[in-house]
């Protein structure tokens, strides 16, 4: 592949991925629901991984996919499930005009940063990473060489940081148990003393013409049992009223048997 081809290829990758990354970032800020925000950020991070690879940083691209899109964003989604998906933003502004001021601040900062950095970067020459990547036999080997020599102390401190973070998360997420956990015996005693129906509820009636769950069972004295119909059906008043004939037949049968 010639130099020109590689350049146009990278330009296509850049413009597609950059557009998608900015779209993801905007979607994150603008979407009302937190889950949608998390998915937009995942899109941005995948596109950033592609841009890393395009910038001759394949190791960082892979780490970006694994650590950010794989671990961090899924952790975000997990916490969203714990906290509640429905917790959308409140639209009440506690500080008047804060939203407009925030947007203006962001625009101003973008303009200022692009202007100053663009000013500083005009005329800057690009060395390229081909020589640096090839020096140690590859990008991964080059980064490993730096981590385990020049940045060894930082690397060791990083391990201390990770252990501390794990400990902190455990301490923060730990919930003290104020009373001992109820045993099976305690649960059984509570159920019997609760005054409700301690055993299984009677099953719905099953007859020649009706055997659906909305059909109440007939008790030995001929009356129908309300609790045999499931509570949701009862709440909707959907339970089927048995024909008087059925009950009378049952009464005849039971009385005839007793005689």
């Amino acid at each position, binding site marked *: 592949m010639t130099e020109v081809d590689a350049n146009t290829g990278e*330009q296509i990758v*850049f413009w597609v991925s*950059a557009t998608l*990354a*900015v779209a993801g*970032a*905007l979607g994150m*800020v603008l979407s009302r629901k*937190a889950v949608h925000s*998390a998915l937009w*950020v995942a899109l941005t*991070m995948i596109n*950033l991984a592609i*841009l*890393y690879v395009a*910038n*001759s*940083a394949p190791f*960082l691209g892979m*780490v*970006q996919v694994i*650590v950010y899109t794989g671990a*961090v964003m899924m*952790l*975000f989604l997990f*916490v969203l499930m*714990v*906290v*509640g998906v429905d917790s*959308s*933003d409140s639209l009440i502004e*506690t500080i008047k005009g804060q*939203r407009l*001021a925030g*947007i203006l*601040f*962001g625009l101003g*900062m*973008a303009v200022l*940063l692009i202007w100053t950095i663009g000013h500083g*970067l005009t005329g800057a*020459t690009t*060395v*390229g*990473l081909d020589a*640096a990547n090839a020096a140690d036999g590859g990008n991964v080997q*080059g*980064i490993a060489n730096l*981590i385990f020599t020049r*940045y060894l102390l*930082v*690397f060791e401190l990083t391990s201390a*940081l*990770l252990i501390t*973070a*794990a400990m*902190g*998360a455990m301490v923060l*997420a730990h*919930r003290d148990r104020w009373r001992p956990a109820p045993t099976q015996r305690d649960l059984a005693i509570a159920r019997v003393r609760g005054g409700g129906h301690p055993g299984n509820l009677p099953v719905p009636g099953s007859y020649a013409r009706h055997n659906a769950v909305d059909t109440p069972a007939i008790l030995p004295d001929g009356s129908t049992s309300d609790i045999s119909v499931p509570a949701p059906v009862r709440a909707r008043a959907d339970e089927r009223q048995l024909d008087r004939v059925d009950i009378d037949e049952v009464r005849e049968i039971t009385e005839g048997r007793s005689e």
Partner: protein
Amino acid sequence: MNPSNYVVLATVLFSIGAVGVLVRRNAIVVFMSIELMLNAANLAFVAFSRMNGNLDGQTVAFFVMVVAAAEVVVGLAIIVTIFRTRRSASIDEPNLLKY
């Protein structure tokens, strides 16, 4: 292709993240905005690494990722703890701590 394009993209993403931190109320979305800002800084590091022709920038970006992962773990644990006591993930609620 000139790597300064990547730096401009990084500044745009960083600004969007800053706006998200300022505008949004849900603590988790604010956290995601912070992650976006860290990622933008990483992209700038990678672009600068390519411009300067050495791998130090990529190494620093790697360490930024590690710190960001640790930060997410602790921050989300704090959010869960606050949610457990206050039943809310809004960042307007913890201002009651000052009373």
